[in-house]
């Protein structure tokens, strides 16, 4: 709920249109004319594609838009559904390697993928030790960069990162 609220704020949409269907535990976006949208991904796409925000946020080319969709799915399938430590470890490693040669997930600027992954990973990264943050250096570097965009972070807590290498001999 928090991530879509922030996204609506980020893209200048009234947060009041967002609600939670208590029975089905699903997010609902209600327009004035009564039309409704259900679910994180569909609402996120709807909002970003309807906003006047710079076009890199939703992807400039068909390829970029597809890549963003892929990461939204990744969040749903791999991050939101990870309950065991071994699932978590697997996708953290995955993402860390992916980000080695990239500043942002898709293209060369912040996109919807970065936005929703930041929210999806926040609690997990908050609980990492400094040793783990250094071990997953590329993930940490990306996260620290994204959280320093005030309009993305909004009310989320700022997570501390070390820019100096604290532990020697560790693989990163």
């Amino acid at each position, binding site marked *: 709920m928090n991530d879509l609220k922030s996204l609506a704020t980020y893209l200048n949409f009234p947060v009041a249109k967002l609600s939670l269907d208590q029975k089905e535990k699903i997010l609902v976006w209600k327009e004035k004319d009564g039309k409704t949208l259900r679910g994180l991904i569909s609402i996120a796409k709807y909002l970003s594609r309807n906003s006047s925000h710079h076009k890199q946020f939703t992807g400039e080319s068909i390829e970029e838009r597809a890549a963003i969709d892929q990461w939204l799915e990744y969040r749903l399938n791999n991050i939101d559904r990870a309950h065991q430590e071994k699932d978590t470890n697997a996708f953290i490693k995955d993402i860390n390697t992916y980000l*080695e*040669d*990239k*500043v*942002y997930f898709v*293209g*060369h*600027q912040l996109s919807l993928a970065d936005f929703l992954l930041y929210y999806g990973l926040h609690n997990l990264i908050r609980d990492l030790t400094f040793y783990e943050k250094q071990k997953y*250096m590329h993930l*940490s*570097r*990306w996260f*620290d*960069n994204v959280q*320093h*965009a005030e309009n993305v972070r909004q009310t989320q807590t700022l997570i501390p*990162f*070390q*820019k*100096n*290498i604290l532990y020697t001999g560790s693989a*990163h």
Partner: protein
Amino acid sequence: MATGTLYTYPDNFRAFKAQIAAEYSRTTIKLASFKFGETNQTPDFLSKFPLGKVPAFVTAGGDCIFESNAIAHFLGNTQLRGKNDKDASFILQWINFGDNEILPASCTWVYPCLGIVQYNKTETERAKAQVKKALSVLDNYLLTRTYLVGERITQADISVACNLLSLYKYVLDPKFVESFTNVNRWFKTLVNQPQFKKVIGDFKFCEKMAEFDAKKYQELHGKADGGKKEKKPADKPKAQPKKEKPAKKDDDEDDDDAPKKNEKDPFAPFPAGKFNMDEFKREYSNKDTLEFALPYFWKNFEKDNYSIWYCEYKYNSELAKIFMTCNLIGGFFQRVEKLRKNAFGSVWFWKGPKLAFELSPDWQIDYESYEWKKLDPTTPETKKMVEEYWSWEGDFGGKKFNQGKIFK
């Protein structure tokens, strides 16, 4: 709001620093119509910018700013300049790093590949090592950071990236930079920012390391000389037709023996002879010239195998300053480096009866700017000349002696 007129030639990485800064601060600047070598030599331009260099900038208020980093600073905004003193200091640190640690080595390495200056293997190898070192420093720093200072793009990123542009464009092939993942990531992200793209266009990464382009060098410099000559009518037009001919000739030679060109010793056709060049050079370097080296030379010199030459630079009027002469001679020595085993000089001598420069196209770059006179080893005049020029003492036919350089 900061605005004004920028003077630069197109595709100038120094001007890019300022132009990209202006994109970030959304400042509109006017580009002056500019012709290199003309606009910057007009009295009006020189009265504003005595150095006659670009980029140069005239603000809307009429202030004149030169030096690219200063212009970029003027055109930037708080985000680019640093939000506080600490950030601003770090930004300055990286701007200077780019100018001092990257740029000189970059020029040494890249310019010969573009034919702008002559290739020197030692220098290029040293430059490569310097670039590697600077990239390692950057790479370690960027492992934990997205941008150089803080979490947003600053002038530090803009300026350092601009200093790396020609390296990444011409010589940093994927293999050379494969270990610099962090620098690559940072640089690729920067050149793909809309503000960068608007100024530098679509950046194309180097696929294969460029090498020294001798043909291009001769083309460029043939032309450049030609241009100069038109302006100075004196004795130069005479030299020009001469210059064209041997260039063609050495092309033909290239074709003939291209396959074995690399291994061939240009002095091979001459008999080995008994004169020991190394021995003589040791004699000259370690002992008194008049007392030991000269007698050794005349005792062992074989006038059938070796010839003695006197050379005079054709364009002495250009050498107004001593350092210019020094540079000229230093450059000449560098270019004929491979002659070293078989030649010695200030009054020169080498193996073979003809001008040694004709033996290899590598040596022909500028020998024609000099007048070469073959000396008769048997006459007393030659002996006197050799003695004077090697010992750096004497009247030198009325010329004033400043300092000596010997090719050995």
